[in-house]
């Protein structure tokens, strides 16, 4: 019983980050072979071991097949039709923000991420990445006083080579999967964070990823290391212009937490999703994984995924340390013809490890939204526990929601709990709110926020408000 004024066709909300910055860029030619990789490595003046890391990954990648197990349909990606390095032209050496091209600063200003000394956000340090390179990182000096290293991964390769050599690829091996191997071969920039022993990072750290060119892929790599008894909260935001072609984004994020360390990693992903007919949009194939190496270490992922034409992403935790904790809190919203296949893997290896999974999927329009997750209890994970809750909300009668939970246990003395639900915003609920004078759109948005509350509560405060607004915008016009 669906009435006329409910749940009908979908009108897409104009994407407000869809502008293109007109800036002179240095691009290499399209295509991918060993020479491309040598060229990227040479541009970044990388040491030999890193070039070998890339080449090994590339050779493995060539023998691998693109995965097809996800519930996604998209036209084949032509890897020879992508530009693998694109950077805005800048002066050779930039010593301060004053030397950064004003157009770039303006771009980030427009995105709500002011970088200059006068305007920069006061409570969070930002690393701004534009296409293939990091443009600027704020608060570096202040952070350095605490021994915290926050810089682009290219700089880290130069200045902290020992850490890079030790940890790069230690969580996500170069040949881990098709897209991780591709990233390992061609990654251009990304953020690097190192929190020394006993330090509680004095402010939130954040990376903002901006794709500007339509024909280049973005392959960033993030590495975060939290030494014993340290802690950090890291935020990640992403946007891209509106192009009618699909742009490939294949990132790798690795987190390492040692004894008693904790890392909180929050993402608001708002890449361009394509138009109502499904033309254009980012193909987002991301490998994110954290290793709880130390005892009582903790890694917590929270994500709000609202953008991209295709999302393929499973932020995971390897729980090695005794009593280590993994968490995954996710809201994934799909509208129009978006497709998302996202979830997590919680691999319990050490004893008395704990993991929590809370996933909220919202599908509107003609979209498909799947949760896919693995909980594995290894043979030594005695006394370990997992709790999973996967809820789906359907808006309209054309959208689809799936849940694919995989559970494997080799340890009888462990507990795994899984709860799942699917609901639809009911006409009666909407009518109840409307009959109290609440506008239709607001009623929907109240109910969606209510549905996501468990996850929003996990986000840093400003992020939570942002996420709430973002969901409301994305759903505007999708019901009614």
């Amino acid at each position: 019983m669906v009435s006329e004024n409910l749940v009908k066709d979908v009108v897409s909300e104009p994407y407000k980050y869809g502008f293109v910055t007109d800036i002179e860029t240095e691009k290499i030619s399209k295509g991918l072979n060993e020479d491309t990789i040598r060229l990227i490595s040479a541009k970044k003046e990388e040491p030999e071991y890193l070039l070998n890391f890339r080449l090994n990954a590339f050779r493995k990648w060539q023998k691998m097949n693109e995965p097809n197990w996800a519930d996604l349909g998209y036209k084949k990606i032509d890897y020879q039709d992508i530009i693998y390095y694109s950077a805005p032209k800048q002066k050779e050496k930039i010593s301060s923000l004053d030397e950064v091209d004003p157009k770039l600063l303006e771009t980030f200003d427009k995105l709500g991420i002011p970088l200059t000394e006068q305007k920069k956000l006061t409570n969070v340090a930002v690393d701004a990445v534009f296409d293939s390179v990091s443009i600027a990182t704020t608060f570096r000096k202040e952070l350095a006083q605490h021994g915290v290293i926050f810089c682009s991964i290219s700089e880290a390769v130069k200045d902290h080579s020992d850490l890079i050599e030790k940890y790069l690829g230690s969580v996500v091996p170069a040949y881990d999967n098709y897209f991780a191997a591709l990233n390992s071969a061609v990654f251009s920039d990304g953020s690097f964070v190192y929190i020394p022993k006993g330090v509680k990072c004095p402010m939130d750290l954040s990376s903002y990823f901006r794709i500007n060119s339509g024909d280049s892929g973005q392959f960033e790599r993030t590495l975060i290391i939290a030494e014993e008894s340290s802690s950090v909260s890291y935020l990640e935001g992403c946007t891209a212009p509106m192009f009618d072609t699909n742009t490939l984004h294949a990132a790798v994020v690795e987190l390492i937490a040692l004894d008693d360390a904790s890392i909180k990693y929050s993402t608001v992903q708002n890449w361009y999703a394509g138009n109502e007919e499904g033309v254009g949009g980012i193909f987002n194939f991301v490998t994110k994984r954290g290793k709880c190496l130390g005892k009582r270490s903790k890694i917590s992922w929270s994500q709000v995924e609202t953008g991209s034409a295709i999302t393929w992403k499973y932020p995971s935790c390897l729980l090695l340390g005794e009593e280590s904790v993994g968490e995954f809190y996710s809201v994934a919203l799909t509208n129009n013809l978006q497709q998302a296949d996202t979830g997590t893997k919680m691999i319990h290896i050490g004893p008395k490890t704990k993991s929590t999974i809370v996933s909220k999927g919202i599908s509107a329009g003609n979209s498909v939204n799947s949760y896919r997750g693995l909980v594995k209890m290894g043979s030594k994970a005695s006394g370990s526990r997992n709790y999973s809750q996967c809820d789906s909300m359907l808006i309209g009668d054309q959208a689809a929601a799936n849940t694919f939970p995989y559970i494997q246990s080799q340890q009888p003395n462990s507990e795994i709990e899984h709860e799942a639900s699917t609901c639809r915003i009911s006409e009666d609920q909407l009518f109840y709110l409307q009959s109290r004078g609440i506008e239709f759109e607001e009623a929907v948005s109240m109910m969606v926020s209510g549905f996501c509350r468990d996850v929003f509560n996990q986000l840093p405060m400003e992020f939570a408000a942002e996420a709430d607004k973002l969901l409301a915008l994305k759903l505007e016009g999708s019901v009614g």
Partner: protein
Amino acid sequence: MQSKKKELNPILEVNNLFASIENLPILKGVTISVNPGEIHAIMGRNGCGKSTLSKIIAGHPSYKVTKGEIKFAGNDIQSLEPEERAQSGIFLGFQYPIEIPGVSNLEFLRVATNARRKFLNKEELDTFDFEDLVKEKLDLVKMDSAFLSRSINQGFSGGEKKRNEILQMALLEPRIAILDETDSGLDIDALRIVASGIKKISNEQTGIILITHYQRLLDEIQPDYVHVMSDGQIIKTGESDLALELEKHGYEWTDNFTKE
């Protein structure tokens, strides 16, 4: 402004209303007129169309009006959305209040109250001012402020849900309130609380329609008129003693009535 004269006009007029759901006719020519300050009771068997009438007045999208008119304060309201009707002062107390997980009751009440205040050109209330207002109204229905932090109606007992409805009525200060079986499922104490809440809220400007099966609510709240509804029509209208007759003889007594 000729306000004095206007107050004598009915606040709600339903004229020869026909309505159906999925082509099944439910209302077959309902006529009722309510003046400000009046209390009307509508009684009748289950399925006779009482709840349908209330939902149609509030604008429920599932029902289709096929003939007749509904006037609120002199204007036809059929083209108005449910939220516009609510903002202008039509209130429906639900027979089965809906549970909405995750949405805080306090936030809901505040948004609803402000939507009504905006319509009345009154200043919207911020969180603090609203909390003061709501605490004052909580006393009317003897509700604890702990209810405010819970999700809308979620896990509320039957009585708590009904009290929450009356709390909403108190906050929204409607011009016409239709209370659909607000007394059903209540024990005697809860019934007294709800009834006294309704009495305290009622005033010279507000018309009230009580849809009920039982005399016991009408013992607490004396109606000015009682209507008996059967098969989509109002077949008899009288004063409060009509309800007593019904109580005595049962609905069978009405079977031989035809539309007056």
